[in-house]
């Protein structure tokens, strides 16, 4: 008997998810029929005023499309994506397995924070680290510490001490224009934090905002608020000058449930699980020059400690980013881009109390980058460059030191990279590589090759990449006597996509990930101290299926992801003793359904749901003090968001409910450190008000 059918409740969940999936596929022929009616209306010059198509101007001629007017779906799937290659390519030819999430999808879904947005993507999941911090997993693998790079307008959000990015009411979704996600390796371009994936968030620039925008979100769980956030944006494009300013701040709660550790301790998260963000993002560009300044503050309150409940305390993460770059167009074919970045961070800052030590370390990264892009012709682009960064960290706690009794440490990393993109009639070939050399842990060389091609309705990708995870400052500091080396990964991926109609597309990919020398955290039994070491090999393989329909009535996005760790190396800390095909915390099967229906021109209804199969977690301790892994049942989360645009001019109102059935949401620790599953938000009612005041356009008035 299937484990999914063990209880009637699980049976109900499964039936619900199957029912919703059925709706998707019923919608498939419906969309095909709809397509028949409009297929002929594909005149490339339908927008031309005169009926004499042949006498069009040179400017109009240059904009002619080979496939007529693109459907909404075609615009989406053929839009250029820059995250996977130095030179933007359409999503279907981009040399990575990529997901694109648009502002429209974010707005309609009512996504409360970045976690809600990323949850829409196949293969992405979340788990708890320590001290109430929730991190990301990718394709079954725990990726929290320096394995998934998060870029916000090009700035690396990962903190430098451990490489983590913290999720939960963090990063303002109201300001996002689009998110491009590589669900695979990105080290050949981005270096040592992009081993398993890259999340590239692009916010609205001055031209997009074109005025002032205000937004407020309130979320209420049964006993306490879930969030109360405000956001303000202002921006304008005047000639070649493009300026934007966005600020946001708020307060939130991880959960209102009671957290119970494995030792009998507990605390009420309705009182002590605050998630308080603040973000300031300023961008300015003038002709070929651009600059960016970001300040990000995130404070997390918890009482779960590393494993045992303790007195409530705060972890604070402060980051400041500055960037300046200039695109020198030396010739029509050659662009040289010098770029300098400064990053200042104080992550994981805690005051300490009677049961724990304070943590207060300041770290700065100074980066210089020079890249060359040469378009030899329309079919061959060569990009190469170099990057140097210097990390400087200082321990500000009197009694605390880095290894060798140093208060300060400084590291230097030098890198060179190159990529060639050649387009042939039958295939695009992408060859790339990056070589990094760190003054402590040595060098990493990560080549990649990609073959992609779009043949009208079909597209095809065959990718093989090496990637690495750079040991972070604390990895080096807490290394054991075996030393510390970069973690190395190789990933093979194959994707085939078929555009079923002008409004629907089906995409399937398979992947195989092998990581060697994984950097793993453990507690040294002899000293009782935290430590890191290069453990054995691990990985996963699996498949992801995506189906998208997009039309004038709305859209349906369905995806299914599967992973197995069978046949891969095992690392004891990640292992599930009773199931060798699974890893701790992450479900082998996950289904997402995100839909939006335009009931009227201004009114949308957006139901969405997620099904997760069984997961495994440490939930008890045996008489010998060893953790006991148990199976947590499958879960089904359903959400509904209603949005009305322009209630009065510029004012949008959205109301919705997340986790409608009040399913118990738990973030599981993906490694063996005996932290019990951390409760997430229960049923949450959300209200969002947004107001946009656009500057008047003189031309429009005239």
């Amino acid at each position, binding site marked *: 008997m299937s484990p999914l059918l063990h209880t009637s409740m699980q049976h109900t969940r499964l039936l619900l998810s199957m029912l919703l999936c059925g709706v998707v596929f019923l919608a498939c022929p419906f969309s095909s029929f709809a397509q028949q009616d409009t297929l002929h209306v594909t005149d490339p010059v339908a927008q031309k005023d005169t009926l004499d198509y*042949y006498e069009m101007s040179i400017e109009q001629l240059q904009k002619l499309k080979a496939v007529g007017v693109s459907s909404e779906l075609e615009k989406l799937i053929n839009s250029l994506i820059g995250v996977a290659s130095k030179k933007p390519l359409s999503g279907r030819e981009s040399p990575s397995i990529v997901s694109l999430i648009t502002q429209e999808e974010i707005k309609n879904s009512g996504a409360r924070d970045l976690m809600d947005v990323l949850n829409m993507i196949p293969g992405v999941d979340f788990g708890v680290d320590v001290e109430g911090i929730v991190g990301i997993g990718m394709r079954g693998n725990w990726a929290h510490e320096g394995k998934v790079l998060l870029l916000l307008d090009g700035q690396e959000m990962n903190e430098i001490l451990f490489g983590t990015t913290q999720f939960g009411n963090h990063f303002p979704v109201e300001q996002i224009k689009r998110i491009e996600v590589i669900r695979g390796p990105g080290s050949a371009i981005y270096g040592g934090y992009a081993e398993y994936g890259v999340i590239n968030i692009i916010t609205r620039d001055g031209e997009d905002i074109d005025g002032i925008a205000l937004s407020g979100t309130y979320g209420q769980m049964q006993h306490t608020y879930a969030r109360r956030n405000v956001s303000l944006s202002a921006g304008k494009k005047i000639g070649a000058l493009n300026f934007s300013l966005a600020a946001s701040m708020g307060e939130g709660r991880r959960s209102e449930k009671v957290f119970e550790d494995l030792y009998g301790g507990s605390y009420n998260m309705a009182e002590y699980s605050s998630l308080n963000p603040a973000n300031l993002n300023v961008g300015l560009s003038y002709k070929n020059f651009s600059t960016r300044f970001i300040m990000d503050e995130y404070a997390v309150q918890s009482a779960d400690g590393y494993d045992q409940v303790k007195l409530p305390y705060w972890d604070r993460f402060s980051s400041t980013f500055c960037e300046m770059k200039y695109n020198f167009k030396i010739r029509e074919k050659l662009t040289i881009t010098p770029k300098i970045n400064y990053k200042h961070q104080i992550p994981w800052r805690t005051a300490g109390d009677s049961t724990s030590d304070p943590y207060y370390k300041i770290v700065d990264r100074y980066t210089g980058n020079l890249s060359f892009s040469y378009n030899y012709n329309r079919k061959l682009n060569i990009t190469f460059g170099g990057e140097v960064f210097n990390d400087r960290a200082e321990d500000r706690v009197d009694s605390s030191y880095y290894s060798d009794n140093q208060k300060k440490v400084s590291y230097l990393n030098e890198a060179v990279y190159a990529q060639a993109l050649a387009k042939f009639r039958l295939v695009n070939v992408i060859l790339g590589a990056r070589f990094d050399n760190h003054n402590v842990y040595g060098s990493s060389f990560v080549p990649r090759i990609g073959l992609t091609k779009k043949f009208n309705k079909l597209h095809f990708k*065959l990718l093989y990449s090496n990637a690495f995870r750079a040991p972070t400052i604390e990895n080096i500091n807490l290394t054991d006597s075996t030393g510390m080396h970069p973690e190395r990964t190789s990933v093979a991926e194959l994707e085939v996509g078929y555009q079923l109609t002008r409004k629907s597309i089906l995409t399937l990919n398979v992947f195989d990930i092998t990581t060697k020398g994984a950097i793993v955290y453990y507690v040294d039994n002899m000293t009782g101290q935290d430590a890191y070491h290069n453990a054995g090999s691990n990985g996963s393989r699996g498949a992801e299926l995506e189906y998208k329909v997009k039309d004038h009535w709305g859209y349906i996005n369905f995806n299914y992801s599967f992973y197995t760790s069978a046949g891969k190396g095992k690392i004891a800390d990640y292992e599930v003793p009773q199931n060798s095909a699974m890893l701790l915390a992450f479900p082998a099967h996950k289904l997402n359904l995100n839909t939006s229906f335009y009931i009227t021109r201004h009114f949308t209804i957006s139901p969405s749901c997620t099904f997760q199969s069984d997961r495994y977690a440490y939930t008890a301790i045996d008489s010998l003090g060893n953790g006991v892994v148990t199976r947590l049942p499958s879960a089904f989360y359903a959400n509904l968001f209603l949005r009305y645009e322009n209630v009065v001019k510029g004012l949008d109102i959205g109301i919705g409910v997340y986790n409608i059935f009040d399913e118990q949401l738990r973030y599981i620790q993906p490694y063996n450190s005996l932290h019990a599953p951390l409760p997430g938000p229960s049923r949450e009612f959300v209200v969002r008000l947004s107001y946009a005041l656009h500057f008047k356009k003189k031309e429009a008035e005239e």
Partner: protein
Amino acid sequence: MKMSFYTRVMICAGISWMMSLCFSGTLQAQDRDYKAYSIYVYNFIKYIEWPQSSKTGEFVIAVIGDSPITKELRTLAASKKANGQTIVIRNIVSLSEVGTAQILYISSGKSNMIKEALEKTKNLPTLVIGEREGLVKKGAGINFVTLDDDTLKFELNKKAIEEHNLHISSTLISLAFVDK
């Protein structure tokens, strides 16, 4: 013998790719908007000058192969003239039927006939247009190109066109990807 995972991936990739290639020919015909192609053909007529000997009588566009462009070119011929000449569209099955056509349009499925087409039109004032990308490298005067964002463009082989005693305006050259 048990195949390794990578061997299996490579086999799947190979099969998928071959399927893509097999399907690509038929799919191309379904999705192209040949109105856009015909608009370009009309502009080629506008911006290319044929010798005096070709300026009398009918302006013949011969299309080799079964292509939806024929229908669109007939729509063009019904409403426009080529510098005063009546445009006539001939759908031909053999290159021996080209005669003194001012334009020979080689549809995608007949791209392998480029060599024979060039022999048949050698020294004749005939513009050879290929539907498939890359034919200018093989001696065609013009071929179409679809960019990443589906914008329709064309490649132009100036030398090959001039060998047919045709004169190209600088306006047309400025629009083209020129093969030197």
